[in-house]
């Protein structure tokens, strides 16, 4: 029991680190809602995994991947605004997911259950989180220039589309890593909220990334401990902790200015 508690804790911390680091890039472009809605796409994939007994992580990752390649392709082939596409397709996939997931599994699919994660899955999640963090740190400068201005990126030979694609892949990976423990519905918030809090207090971009990760870790620890103490599922507590941190950081910003 003790071992599985600490395993859950460490897994949650790693999921949080990769999600919150990613978040500091997601909110740069005011893409918060896109990110949030995008995480819902995991739901139908997760449902298929549950129905046909394969790992829901793989199902979620695959549907996210299809959606992301779809957006990326459409963005360059048409001039449709990305947020409109996201709003339409992703809410639809949420609806489809809800319809095909067996009712008794629905709650877990939407809000996660970290206790149901096996030892092997935890190790896998930790390794993939580390990979996602490393890739993000490696491409961070290019990614940032590309977000500031695509033309600027192109003028210094940054391959914009490639960078954008890697970024979307990392996005899919980070969401998929969290769907089993935090839930497909809540994962988007875990990406956004720590970064939004960090934005309130950071003065530099390095500080912004660091604070975002720190807030992600604190939310994970608070979430797992209180869920254990109260015997409830940790996903929602996770998000509530993150939101409390956001409120505190917002007050801090107000007081400082």
């Amino acid at each position, binding site marked *: 029991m003790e071992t599985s508690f600490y395993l859950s804790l460490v897994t949650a911390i790693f999921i949080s680190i990769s999600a919150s680091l990613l978040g500091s890039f997601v909110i740069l472009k005011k893409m918060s809602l896109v990110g949030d809605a995008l995480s819902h796409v995991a739901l139908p994939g997760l449902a298929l995994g549950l129905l046909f007994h394969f790992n829901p992580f793989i199902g979620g990752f695959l549907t996210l991947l299809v959606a992301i390649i779809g957006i990326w392709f459409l963005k360059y082939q048409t001039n449709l605004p990305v947020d409109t596409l996201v709003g339409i397709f992703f809410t639809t996939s949420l609806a489809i997911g809800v319809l095909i997931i067996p009712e008794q599994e629905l709650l877990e699919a939407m809000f996660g259950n970290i206790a149901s994660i096996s030892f092997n899955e935890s190790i896998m999640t930790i390794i993939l989180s580390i990979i996602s963090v490393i890739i993000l740190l490696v491409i961070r400068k290019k990614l*940032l220039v590309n977000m500031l*201005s695509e033309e600027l990126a192109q003028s210094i030979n940054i391959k914009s589309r490639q960078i954008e694609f890697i970024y979307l892949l990392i996005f899919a990976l980070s969401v998929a890593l969290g769907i089993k423990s935090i839930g497909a519905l809540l994962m988007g918030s875990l990406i956004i909220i720590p970064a939004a809090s960090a934005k309130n207090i950071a003065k530099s971009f390095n500080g912004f990334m660091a604070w975002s990760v720190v807030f992600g870790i604190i939310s994970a620890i608070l979430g797992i401990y209180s869920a254990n103490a109260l015997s409830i599922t940790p996903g929602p507590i996770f998000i509530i902790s993150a939101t409390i941190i956001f409120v505190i950081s917002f007050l801090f910003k107000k007081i400082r200015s």
Partner: protein
Amino acid sequence: MNILKVENLTVSLGKNNIVENIDFEVKKGEVLAIIGPNGAGKTTLFRALLNLIPYSGSVKWQKNIQLGYVPQRIEIDMDIPLTVEEFLNLRGSNVTKIKIKKVLEYIQLDEKILKSRLGEISVGQRQRLLIGWSLLENPDILLFDEPTADVDIHGQESVYKTISHLRKKFNLAVILISHDLNIVYQYADKVMCLNHRSLCIGKPSEILQTGHLQELYGGERGFYDHDYSHHNHQH
């Protein structure tokens, strides 16, 4: 020596040609201004030069050319925590403190600005900073897409003074999209009038005559003599 040669450049969107059959060249140290009404295809032309969009025809840059591009504006939320120093460091891995110091001198900004957030400095300062950013890797040519679109009159002057100063200092070539005919008259060696096609190309004194401008803008738009003679005195 040509550093850019464009031949028969056409960019299409669906069935419409946004720009069509454009030919021009830019020599080392030369300033080319591109003028034309809104929607004439000026920015599209730039995007084609930067190879951001598909085009037909040929765009030949001199081998191993270093481009400096100065966008109209930065597209992210200005509230974001990104310091001026961090922004300059994004240019590449060879950016050093010494280089940054030098570039700040060229664009006449104080070193104190390095610790400021990008959102805290004025728009004029930000545009000069973008110029500085492109100077970090010793460019051969600078491309400006209406560098002062969001800048007030006072800031505009400082941006153009910076451009002109740098151009003389480094013998830089410049391609400049501008609405401001005074600026074009004052700084350009060559002007191209663009309205989907290239309507005229030549020296500013030849081009900025009411005839050409009327053809370009299609209205009663003239270039006021007293304005440019005034600027001439300043030179």
